[in-house]
């Protein structure tokens, strides 16, 4: 090719460009693909429906327990006289109010009847050298402790007054405060719950969006629109558009759900959980994005290997396994196995954030895990992109992964 011809070509092209000045060079066709992916999903009733459903479930999980706890009307305690009533009122104050309510009984026999009939939770009767708590088959430990504390406080104040001491003098130098050097994260049961919850969020989101990515790819193959797309933009741009579009959608879905549960927690006065969750949230996002992107590349390949929706069952199987095995492992395995899992790519996205919540994890561990995950993500996405490029336009029949790796670039 002579330089002259080259020049002419450029010139010709320039004149054509001038003739159609409306055309602008779009630098990132993947943005368009991502944009289409997002706007299509946002109009998809199934997607909106499932997001709303998840939102309701999460809100319910946050709010309903609080409502049940909060709705408890004060326990009624039967007393015979003002002294008893004062003890119950003090116990109520110790518990922050709305816990116990005074019910007057005429005599011990009446109080006993009220207890047996279930009209009151318990009865506080004058006893030898103090009080007697009367219960039916048992007395709640909380109630017992509160009443005991109240009775002791009141009694000691009275005794002190008789001895000429003010309540302040009485309590001088008896305050015991608490300071933790390594504030323990969460109560164990809550920790387990949050642990499983975090892994579940990743598992559900990666699986749900993964299937959507595979479906969206196979739809383009099935409807043959892929041929036009491939003629207009590089196939890699199609892949990146899909991966990025769906990652943005998945993260937004999580943010919306997180915001909803945040509002729920604040509204129901459970904000203290946040103090524990907040430092891990940033880590979770990093692990989530990297793990999600690596998987998204594989899901896209699962779609491009298939030729019809029905093929997805078999082509997405490896992706499902890659998610399911680490999920059950990171949820149910013992502490040491969990530690190992928290460094293995994909599994680490499910295990590490949970571990950081429930254990003291030195900061190098999540950093190392992220590094390993990052390397794995780059490798998986590169392999995925190559397989995707080679198989996307093969519309003849379903391909296997081994076959796809053997295909030469065409």
């Amino acid at each position, binding site marked *: 090719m002579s330089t002259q011809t080259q020049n*002419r070509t450029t010139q010709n092209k320039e004149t054509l460009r001038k*003739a159609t000045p409306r*055309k602008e060079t779009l630098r990132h066709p993947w943005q368009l693909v991502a944009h289409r992916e997002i706007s299509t999903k946002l109009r998809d009733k199934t997607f909106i429906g499932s997001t709303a459903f998840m939102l309701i479930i999460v809100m319910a999980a946050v709010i309903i327990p609080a409502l049940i706890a909060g709705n408890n009307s004060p326990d009624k305690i039967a007393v015979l006289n003002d002294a008893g009533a004062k003890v119950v009122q003090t116990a109520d104050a110790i518990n922050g109010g709305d816990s116990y309510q005074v019910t007057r009984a005429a005599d011990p026999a009446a109080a006993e009847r009220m207890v047996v009939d279930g009209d009151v939770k318990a009865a506080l009767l004058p006893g030898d050298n103090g009080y007697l708590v009367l219960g039916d088959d048992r007395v709640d430990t909380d109630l017992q402790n509160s009443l005991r504390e109240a009775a002791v406080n009141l009694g000691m104040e009275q005794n002190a007054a008789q001895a000429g001491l003010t309540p302040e003098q009485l309590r001088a130098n008896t305050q015991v405060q608490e300071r933790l050097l390594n504030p323990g994260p969460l109560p164990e049961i809550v920790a387990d719950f949050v642990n499983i919850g975090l892994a579940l969020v990743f598992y559900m989101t990666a699986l749900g969006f993964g299937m959507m990515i595979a479906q969206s790819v196979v739809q383009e193959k099935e409807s043959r629109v892929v041929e036009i797309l491939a003629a*207009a933009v590089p196939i890699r741009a199609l892949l990146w558009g899909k991966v990025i579009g769906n990652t943005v959608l998945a993260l937004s879905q999580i943010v919306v759900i997180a915001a909803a549960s945040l509002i729920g927690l604040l509204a129901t006065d459970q904000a203290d959980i946040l103090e524990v969750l907040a430092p891990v949230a940033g880590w979770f996002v990093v692990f989530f994005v990297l793990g999600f992107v690596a998987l998204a590349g594989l899901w896209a390949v699962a779609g491009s290997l298939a030729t019809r929706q029905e093929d997805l069952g078999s082509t997405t199987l490896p992706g499902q396994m890659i998610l399911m095995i680490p999920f059950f492992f990171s949820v149910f395995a013992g502490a040491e196995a969990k530690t190992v899992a928290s460094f293995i790519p994909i599994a680490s996205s499910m295990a590490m954030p949970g571990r950081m919540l429930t254990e003291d994890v030195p900061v190098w561990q999540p950093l190392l895990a992220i590094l390993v995950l990052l390397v794995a993500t780059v490798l998986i996405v590169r392999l995925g992109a190559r397989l995707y490029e080679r198989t996307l336009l093969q519309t003849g029949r379903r391909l296997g992964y081994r076959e796809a790796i053997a295909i030469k670039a065409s």
Partner: protein
Amino acid sequence: MLSVAGLTRRFGDHLALDDVSFDVVPGRMTGFVGANGAGKTTTMRIILGVLAATSGEARWNGAPLTHEVRRDFGYMPEERGLYPKMKIRDQLVFFGRLHGMDSTRAAERTDKILGRLGLAERAGDVLETLSLGNQQRVQIAAALVHEPIALVLDEPFSGLDPLAVDAMVDLLRDEVTPEVPVLFSSHQLELVERLCDDLVVLSRGKVVAAGSVAELAAGPTATYRMVVDGDAGWLRDIAGIKVRDVAGATALFDVEAAGQEQQILQQALSRGAVLEFGPERVALSDVFREATR
């Protein structure tokens, strides 16, 4: 100008294209004909870059086709397909933008083309709710929306009734500016003969004929047809002409030099009445059969 040079493509042992070269001249419609499996779709897919050539290349104004140039092409693949669940207007705007238009311009063009196709009031409808004929129109619109600098259409008229074909041809004529080369493949030879300026005939992966439709139809030698009152068998004894066929009073023959036919005519008149005499236009289907034999 769009051209392919020495295009060869193998699928395993099968040689699908064997050194295929031809030009698609700007402003002319080039018909691309050949039997099933001759390699038309393979050639078109290589031009659009969705399939790689084993050797040879597609060129634009003499230089190898780049992705940037291809992006301005309009393409209608053999296997039709758009997004079935996307609204047709959104869909066309998306394709316009994918081909490098800004959104305002893409929207303008979409509305104009939908109007021309009589689909303006269906703009907000989902593609799959349209009739197949209308879906085909949208498909053509998708190839035209970005004001392509070249058009490659694989069987654009298959499955359309004659009226729809006419509407589509009008659209092509109006929407395609004179500097745009158009290559389209078809099985319908009468249609190709009616629409095309140039013709490329492909057979088993090889170009067996290429040139303007007029040239190809005329053939290398002029053929004449004569009907006389009596028997025309005497033609066989005349030197310098090639008799293709004599059946009683009707004869078909080729002359080698211009003017020779006048001598034949005089001779025929001297023998009796001449009922018909004139050049025989060869139907394209005969050219096709001849070339692909």
